[in-house]
């Protein structure tokens, strides 16, 4: 491989990184607010893909980009319900309990999804043309995915830092007992945060469905990738997650020029473990 391929594949990786980052923001938001590692993250990403797929192939033939808006709303509701049923009761239990509670939801989603959709690969056939400059070709679907990811990230920021609800969520994340003393209904805020986190995962799944083929089990790979990104950016830090996503996307794009594709994950996991051991608070965090 030559250096000529470097720039296009770096751009490709960078664009994917935004979508990875979006999924990771969902995971990290939930961890940051309630110290729960959401193991239903992967299947929820896959559900986002199937929301778009079902609406698109259904009788109405809904445009995939409208499907993304649907995924946002469905994700929010799904997350709130999941929190109230599976997580709320054990929110103060040791981490193993919440891990297993969310894992049980993981099993249920995969069970229902595989019996409904089978594991045959699906694809949402959408094409928006492409722009070419020199040896760089940018697919329209990739550009739109990046734009949507950025818009959603900005919306999340506006919500967290410019509204009263966002302030309450941050207060609950900071100190739940103190927030309750200030009159904040912490249960409601936790449910809402879980909903927002789930919604982010579904939106990123919806975006991924316009880029790659998928089946109900596709979420697992993105889930592990989200773990890597979240640790890279610092557990519980949404800005870090977006940045981590971009770093991982870029890394995937650039390194494939120099080393075989199958070795790229090795590099990712080595970075992951190294960060955990040397800088557990992530790239943006203060030194541990």
């Amino acid at each position, binding site marked *: 491989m030559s250096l000529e391929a470097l720039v296009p594949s770096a751009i490709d990786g960078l664009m994917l990184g935004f979508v990875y980052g979006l999924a990771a923001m969902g995971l990290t938001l939930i*961890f940051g607010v309630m*110290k729960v*590692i959401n*193991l239903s993250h992967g299947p929820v990403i896959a559900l986002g893909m199937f929301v778009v797929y079902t609406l698109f192939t259904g009788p109405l033939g809904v445009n995939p980009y409208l499907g993304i808006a649907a995924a946002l709303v469905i994700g929010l509701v799904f997350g709130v319900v999941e929190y109230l*049923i*599976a997580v709320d*009761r*054990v929110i103060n*239990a*040791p*981490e*193993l*309990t919440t*891990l*297993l*509670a969310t*894992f*049980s*939801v*993981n*099993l*249920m989603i*995969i*069970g*229902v999804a*595989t*019996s409904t959709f089978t594991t045959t690969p699906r694809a949402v056939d959408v094409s928006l043309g492409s722009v070419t400059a020199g040896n760089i070709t940018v697919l329209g679907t990739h550009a739109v995915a990046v734009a949507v990811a950025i818009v959603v990230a900005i919306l999340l920021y506006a919500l967290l830092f410019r509204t009263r609800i966002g302030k309450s969520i941050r207060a609950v994340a900071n100190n739940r007992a103190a927030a309750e003393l200030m009159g904040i209904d912490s249960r409601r805020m936790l449910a809402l945060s879980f909903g927002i986190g789930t919604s982010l995962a579904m939106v990123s799944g919806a975006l991924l469905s316009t880029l790659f083929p998928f089946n109900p089990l596709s979420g*697992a790979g993105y889930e*592990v990738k989200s*773990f*890597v990104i979240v*640790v890279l950016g610092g*557990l519980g830090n949404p800005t870090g997650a977006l940045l981590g996503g971009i770093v991982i996307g870029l890394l995937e794009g650039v390194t494939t020029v120099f080393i*075989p594709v*199958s*070795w790229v*994950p*090795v590099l990712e*996991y*080595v970075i*992951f*473990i190294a960060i*955990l*051991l040397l800088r*557990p608070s992530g790239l943006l965090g203060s030194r541990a």
Partner: protein
Amino acid sequence: MRRYRIPFLPLVVLVFAIATAMPTLTSNPTLREELFLVFMLVTLASSINIIMGYTGYVSFGHIVFFGLGGYFAFYLMQVQGWHFLAALIAGAIPSALIALVIGIPILRLRGAYFALATVGINEAMRVVFNNWEEFGGAVGMFFNFSVYARYGGASQARDLGYYSMAAVAISTIAASYWIKRSKFGLSLMAIREDQDVAMVVGIDPSRAKVAAYVISAVFPAMAGAAFFFRNGLIEPGHAFELQRSIESLVMVVLGGIGTVAGPIVGAAVYEWLRGFLITNPTLASFQLSLAGLLLLVVVLFVTAGLVGWLRNRFPVLRSYIP
């Protein structure tokens, strides 16, 4: 007056010995395959219990040791021509060494960070073996038929694998029981409850934790060796399957975390339930969903697991079921 107590360990060994002999006595090969799986799951669940139940560290990617043991034993048998039993013992050495080397840094992490690190290590090993041509790469390795010849044929080799798995399971339970009853186990449980207090009373936490981690790594490695010996085929996706790791955690919680008997009961119940769901025509397609629902009910309402619930409900049982 001294109350008569049924000795737990000899009783378990007796039950296992009878169970092991049953398929041969009743000439029921299906039962043998089921028991083989149950022995393997008991080994995985009991060894996770040592680091998770006693010490309080959620080793999420514990299956990495199963895969490593399987791979090294397989390599010794296929490429170096070792006898199965020698490979079973030797195959556990890399797992123990890796647990020792990575255990020292990662056991400093607490809570979720440790759980994530173990996932990372498992995934890293999976992709390393995916690329390692010496070990067959992504395709994996498979036995030539001649490998089984030295044991007197494929069916004798299968029997050998079966009895070895039973022995590994019993050794795991014995180790688990011994740790729970020993001073070493007491120091692990002190670390689980409060590491800082444990240090104050003179326990060296990092030493005890690493020792527990190494012990809990050895048994899955031997189970992996026996499993893949019988399987005749090993590939990375199957050896380092994160799903199986999580299933073992489920068994521990189902049976009762931190008890000796819990993982045994949990593994048997889980496997029985899965067999029931898979073979039932109306429930088969909902098998995963029902398993998820059941897990959620246990996690939310029966936090102590089956054995733990019994012990809490009938305190007299506490002296009989460790």
